């Protein structure tokens, strides 16, 4: 009997060790591939990354080429996307959580939002091309790109915002109702202030996904040379992922270095957006609770 239980004991320990090794392998693989990517990008890109690169237009001559137009394009597109998607997403989430009746129609909508979050981004690109570029005749403009990206990240923003709303304690709502607040007053005075940090964090993370999207942007903006920085939402544009894709496709090896430098700029923008999200979360997270 004792022998058997000892054997079981050893087997338990082995199982524990196996799980530990599996988990460690996972994290090591992730970190190593990230490090390899960064090392490669830095090694190739750093020599090209200078002020001239940041302030120049695209060019056929590698030594004169820069990312300025694409950087501006990305900022324009993501800024407009934020303006469109945040109010719409928060509004939809508030409706679903606070107002919608609990019936089949609501759960049908809910199910579809969850499904939309999983649709490949190129599908949104094709939809945007047909709907915004062609049908609404916005052309290959920043606005068309921003609306397309808004569609792409709306499901994510809605889901994240719903979770933020659900995390507001029910006792707070009841306290406000018991004081004679209307539903809108409860939403505005109790739910929104407490849910807003979570909504903002989720939206910024969704936007940083949008800024790295190449596929739908290629469908909307096409692979073209844009010789000016945009001045309005109806201007033609290009974005960083397209520019990087473009450079990678060039035959001369110098363009590989340019692409790597572009990746570094894109990563820097992503990193600052994500740090901003973390900052907001830490600053406002459950004040005093």
């Amino acid at each position, binding site marked *: 009997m004792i022998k058997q239980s000892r054997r079981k004991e050893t087997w338990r320990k082995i199982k524990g060790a196996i799980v530990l090794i599996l988990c460690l392998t996972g994290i090591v693989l992730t970190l190593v591939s990230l490090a390899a990517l960064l090392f490669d990008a830095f090694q190739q890109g750093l020599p090209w990354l200078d002020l001239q690169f940041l302030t120049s237009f695209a060019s056929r001559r590698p030594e004169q080429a820069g990312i300025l137009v694409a950087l501006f394009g990305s900022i324009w597109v993501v800024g407009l996307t934020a303006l469109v998607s945040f109010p719409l997403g928060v509004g939809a989430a508030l409706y679903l959580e606070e107002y919608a009746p609990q019936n089949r129609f609501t759960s049908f909508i809910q199910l579809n939002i969850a499904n939309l979050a999983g649709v490949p981004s190129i599908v949104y690109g094709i939809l945007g091309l047909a709907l915004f570029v062609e049908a609404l005749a916005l052309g290959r403009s920043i606005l068309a790109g921003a609306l397309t990206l808004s569609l792409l990240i709306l499901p994510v923003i809605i889901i994240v915002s719903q979770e933020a709303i659900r995390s507001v304690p029910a006792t707070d709502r009841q306290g406000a109702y018991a*004081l*004679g607040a209307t539903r809108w007053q409860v939403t505005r005075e109790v739910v929104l202030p407490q849910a807003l940090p979570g909504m903002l964090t989720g939206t910024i993370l969704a936007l940083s996904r949008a800024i790295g999207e190449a596929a739908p942007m290629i469908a909307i903006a096409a692979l073209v040379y844009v010789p000016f920085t945009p001045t309005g939402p109806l201007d033609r544009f290009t974005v960083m992922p397209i520019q990087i894709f473009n450079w990678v496709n060039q035959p001369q090896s110098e363009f590989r270095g340019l692409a790597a430098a572009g990746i570094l700029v894109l990563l820097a923008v992503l990193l600052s957006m994500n740090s901003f999200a973390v900052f907001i979360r830490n600053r406002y997270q459950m004040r005093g609770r």
Partner: protein
Amino acid sequence: MVVNKVKIDIQDLNVWFGSKHVIKDINMGIKPNAVTAVMGPSGCGKTTLIRAINRLNELIRGSKTTGEIYIDKKKVYSKDTDIFELRRRVGMVFQKPNPFPISIYENIAFGPKLHNMADGEELEAIVEKSLKGGALWDEVKDRLNDNAFSLSGGQQQRLCIARALAVEPDIILMDEPCSALDPASTAKIEMLIRELAENYTVIIVTHNLQQAARVSDLTAFMYVGKLVEYGSTKRVFEKPESELAEEYITGKFG
């Protein structure tokens, strides 16, 4: 009739949550400017009964209420009832202190602002008066802008009482207001409840027999959704009419 002057008149009240029949045919008159305690074992419908008075049960999906409640002879369950005005007049204090995560001052000003009752100096006066009414003013007057969560549990509960007072109710419902507090904080709140009874009609749900005996003028005893015994606290504790109430009071179940 146990009470001759009636502030709240509950008639043939029935409440269902889905198919669950929680309150069964309750008839009860609540005396003005007195403390009425509602006792009974867990799940007997005490909380649902008081939440019927400010129609808070309606927040729960699938709830259904029949019968009628009159406050000062006016119907609570009528189509013409202004439910927000009703809840202003019927304040409520919850089991667990639930201040909003904002400053002490803003917690009190919250209700008056909702109802556009006052602003500026007038609002400041309401905040001071309410905090005094909640026996909290002396402890917080120098830190009104601190977050309400910096207060102790007992202070938070008194803040919630003051918050309810700020909208000038005439009835205050309390749902086991001391169950999450230590004995010292409980004693303070019990004293406060006695003071409140001078100006307000107070209904307090409690698990605690001693508490009911200490603070209330009238005691109701409920069992599985029914009102089993109702009368002056002294009478109910000394000479309970029903066997169930007697068994509960002597600690045979609970």
